[in-house]
């Protein structure tokens, strides 16, 4: 995607929006998180969430999809300019994921990523890690979701 050295701490990437329809919430929940408040409007209303609520994994997966779409756009634009960008490595994991407000049926969440820091590995020359704050906001601008992600990136050297 980019070499490790090309990530600037503080840089913000707007990833776009994702709408959680009732049908999509239920479809994801049937596959991966079939708790009543993710499957049924009435059960959702009776729960702490106050309505049919998306699984937290669904909210996280939408971030991932928008991040990959962004990455693919960046790669395609570079290819159109005749540049060849490095391919991002895998992720070793994440920290501090919080679902601070429920995402209810019909809501549209706006996602963004802020690059926080980078570190080159002494033990693995040619690779480093990019740490980012990934966030989702509802229509009122309230933050509903965030986590700190880590992705391996190749270094320039």
């Amino acid at each position, binding site marked *: 995607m980019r070499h490790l050295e090309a990530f600037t701490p503080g840089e913000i990437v707007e990833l776009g929006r994702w709408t959680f329809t009732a049908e999509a919430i239920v479809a994801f929940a*049937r*596959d*991966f*998180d*079939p*708790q*009543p*408040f993710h*499957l049924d409007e009435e059960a959702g209303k009776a*729960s*702490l*969430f106050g309505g049919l*609520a998306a*699984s*937290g*994994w669904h909210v*996280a*997966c*939408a971030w*991932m*999809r928008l991040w*990959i779409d962004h990455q*693919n756009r960046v790669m395609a634009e570079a290819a159109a300019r005749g540049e060849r960008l490095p391919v991002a*490595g*895998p*992720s*070793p*994991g*994440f*920290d*501090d*994921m*919080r*679902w*601070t407000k429920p995402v209810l049926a019909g809501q549209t969440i706006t996602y963004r990523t802020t690059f926080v820091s980078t570190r080159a590995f002494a033990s693995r020359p040619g690779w480093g890690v990019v740490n980012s704050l990934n966030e989702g906001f509802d229509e009122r601008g309230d933050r509903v979701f965030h*986590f700190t992600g880590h992705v*391996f990136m190749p270094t320039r050297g």
Partner: protein
Amino acid sequence: MTDIERPTGDAPMHWFEDFHVGDMIDLGCRTVSREEIVAFAAAWDPQPMHLEDAAGDASLLAGLSASGWHTGSLVMRMFCDNFLLRSSSLGSPGIDTLKWKTPVHPGDTLRVVLEVSEMRTSGSRPRLGFVRGSFLVTNQRGETVMTMESTLMMGRRGVA
């Protein structure tokens, strides 16, 4: 995906009071197929290493591999089927840390165990308690695939 079997109308079997620090809860085993790896990746994580053999072989993950988000989502499903759907679960505030340690390849069998590490009641909301736990996900070779520290909100027995 298999259909959901949930005994509706039954009282939950597992309440906050039924957890104890140090409990080890077996969340079962699950084999992951090539078809579901590719279908999940196409929907949520369309990177070549999760979609095509050649790209998987060329990646650091050495072979077509499941998206880490897929592994996490499958663990959630196993947790539901083998525990949560018979509990007083009220959701989760988040995941403190998750590590993907070993890739998941087609045909791998995941085994998940949850260890209860911490419990506390809520001062502001008497009907719920917080249970913190460590999920250990291993494969058929005994390798650690994923670890996760997460908090659950559980209803308290007899508190409306």
